[in-house]
């Protein structure tokens, strides 16, 4: 089965961030092509996901190399083989600093067409620089998307063509699109890209094996727009989100009534809205935090890709609700399938990230002269020494550059996981009556909602009383101590196919299971 996911706009990119962590935890399908669509390529959210995607792919390929370091097929850690194009972000408009006028060749249009365009777009909309996205104007985004061609030479669209060709060849193909229903890029991209994909499917006469799914994010956050220096600027106004959503839902209602575009659609929203401290019109400063509803969309995508998900001929629309109280709990997180328990897998990844970042990563970092003090410890002998020993040089190569690169990349990724879950936990509920109780983060991190460039600061070192709080890290399951992890890594059975550092990484990951 071939799976494709497309995150459109800032929200789509943020949902992909959740999806990547979920895939690292073993909740994803075996393989997945991931791509993003955003005109605002420098957008902080898009670039954050782009970096995370590249970290995921690099770590996975290094740790799934049958020659050197292999986690082995059975391992759930970085289970999904995610691939992407050389540039994971597709820009609908390739020109530098384009405006809508330039895009549609406004000056060369006949007067009557010009008149029509004048009716549909304000003068500032026509002259707006689109390099930072469509600024919550789906009417601009829709025109821009439709003005671009979807030919096979385009690296992004070539993937869609390949997917449809694969479906025609008899392989099951699933494509999933995630975006917000409000805003600019997402709202305009979601229906247009979906319809374009369907159109290609029809042109290629593919009637079976090809399934299209989507997740639509209804409004789930808002922010305060500063009053000064905003006159004449085009940007996403939170007070317009609900009206935009209403209009968009009416549109989708009609679209779905007359045309079966999607096989399965997941609709997610949040009430009360999360309040973001950060307002930026676009660009690299727009660095919004990961929020809980995006995890729903990501898990929806993974459910869609799950082999247990039997897709039928009718168009299915799913919705999900959390418990009625203002507390957000692990029990509010749905499972991907009967065999894939989201809580178990995510909590395992969080524990892994914690223990690797503060316990095992630092112990394995540095030259052999620093690391060798652990050489007689059972976990080191069994999982590291034996698997990084070079028979030719008769030495353990854990301190060598290539191994150290893997160790530091994993530590970087583990910090990303801890920052992600902490940021989501705090940012989803900050300044609201809600309470999110997934993890106990206060003992290892500091949160500052206003520091948009670094909302979460995780401690460099933990003292022994902080380490002892590890058993309270995951709420709802307070029994696993760091001592149990140490015990588990000494006793868990090594898979015969595992090699190099893949042995240690997988054993540590499995040891973090409750």
């Amino acid at each position, binding site marked *: 089965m071939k799976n494709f996911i497309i995150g459109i706009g800032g929200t789509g990119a943020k949902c992909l961030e959740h999806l990547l962590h979920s895939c690292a935890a073993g909740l994803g399908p075996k393989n997945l092509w991931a791509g993003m669509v955003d005109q605002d390529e420098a957008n902080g959210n898009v670039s954050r996901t782009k970096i995370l995607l590249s970290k995921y792919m690099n770590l996975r390929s290094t740790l799934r190399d049958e020659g050197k370091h292999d986690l082995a097929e059975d391992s759930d850690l970085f289970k999904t083989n995610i691939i992407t194009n050389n540039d994971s972000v597709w820009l609908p408009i390739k020109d530098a600093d384009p405006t809508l006028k330039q895009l549609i060749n406004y000056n060369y249009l006949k007067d009557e067409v010009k008149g029509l365009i004048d009716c549909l777009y304000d003068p500032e909309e026509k002259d707006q620089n689109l390099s930072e996205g469509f600024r919550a104007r789906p009417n601009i985004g829709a025109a821009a998307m439709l003005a671009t061609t979807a030919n096979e030479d385009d690296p992004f669209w070539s993937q869609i063509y390949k997917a449809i060709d694969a479906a025609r060849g008899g392989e099951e193909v699933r494509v999933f699109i995630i975006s917000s229903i409000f805003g600019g890029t997402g709202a305009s991209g979601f229906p247009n890209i979906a319809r374009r994909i369907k159109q290609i499917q029809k042109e290629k006469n593919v009637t079976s094996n090809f399934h299209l799914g989507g997740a639509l994010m209804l409004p789930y956050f808002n922010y305060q727009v500063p009053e000064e220096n905003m006159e004449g600027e085009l940007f996403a106004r939170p007070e317009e989100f609900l009206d935009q959503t209403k209009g968009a839902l009416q549109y989708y209602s009609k679209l779905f009534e007359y045309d079966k575009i999607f096989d399965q659609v997941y609709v997610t929203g949040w009430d009360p809205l999360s309040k973001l401290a950060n307002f930026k019109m676009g660009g690299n400063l727009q660095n919004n935090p990961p929020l809980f509803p995006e995890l729903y969309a990501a898990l929806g995508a993974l459910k869609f890709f799950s082999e247990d998900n039997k897709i039928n001929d009718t168009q299915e629309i799913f919705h999900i609700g959390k418990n009625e109280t203002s507390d957000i709990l692990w029990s509010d997180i749905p499972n991907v399938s009967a065999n894939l328990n989201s809580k178990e897998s995510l909590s395992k990844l969080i524990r892994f990230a914690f223990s690797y970042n503060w316990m095992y990563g630092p112990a394995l970092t540095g030259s052999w002269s620093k690391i060798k*003090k652990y050489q007689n410890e059972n976990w080191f002998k*069994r*999982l590291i020494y*034996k698997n990084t020993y070079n028979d030719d040089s008769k030495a353990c190569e854990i301190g060598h550059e290539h191994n150290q690169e893997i160790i530091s990349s994993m530590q970087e990724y583990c910090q990303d996981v801890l920052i992600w879950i902490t940021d989501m936990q705090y940012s989803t509920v900050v300044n609201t009556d809600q309470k999110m109780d997934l993890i106990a983060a206060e003992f290892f991190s500091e949160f500052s909602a206003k520091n948009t460039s670094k909302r979460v600061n995780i401690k460099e070192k933990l003292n022994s009383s902080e380490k002892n709080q590890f058993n309270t890290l995951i709420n709802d399951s307070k029994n696993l101590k760091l*001592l149990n992890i*140490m*015990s588990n890594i*000494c006793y868990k059975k090594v898979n015969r196919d595992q090699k190099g550092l893949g042995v240690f990484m997988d054993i540590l990951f499995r040891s973090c299971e409750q």
Partner: protein
Amino acid sequence: MKNIIQSITYSLIGLATISWIGIYLIVISVADPGPDSYIVGFFSDNIMSEERIQNLGFDNFAEISTSFFTKLFFHMNLTLAILTTLMTLAWCVASHYLNIDSPGKAKIYALHWLVFTGIFVGLVLAIVFYFTGSTQYSSAQAITKGGQFLLLVMSLLIYVLPYYLGVLLGTARFARSSVLFANKLPGGF
């Protein structure tokens, strides 16, 4: 729990390698070795004082050997064997609960092991001194100072060595750095 059972099994194997001597002594003691046996001769020549035996009103050790072996020697060895087994198993089980939560921390618990082992050796000495110097067993009065020392050395060999082998093999894998030379065992063991 599976790991603890594994530890107990390994420690019992370690114990068994030498402690069969202790068990053998217990068995022959309770069965009464008989006045003509080698062990009675050995005790008569090296541990007992003929003069003290005569002071007790007997001609030689063979006359009191039954009382010595079936009571004093049997009780002493049984107590030592039970103590050794309990102490070995206690350490092996407890080692799974030592708070070794990060790399390098097991070494800290070497001190705990040394104290624990010291207590065990002290108890062995105390038990041997108690039985060989006790007035409850009249035959104890016939043991010479040299004989008492020999019994002490033999008891240490017969019970402390299996204790060490028991903890060597049975200590939790992650706590091996706390036991002398245990971290030299192969990683997969």
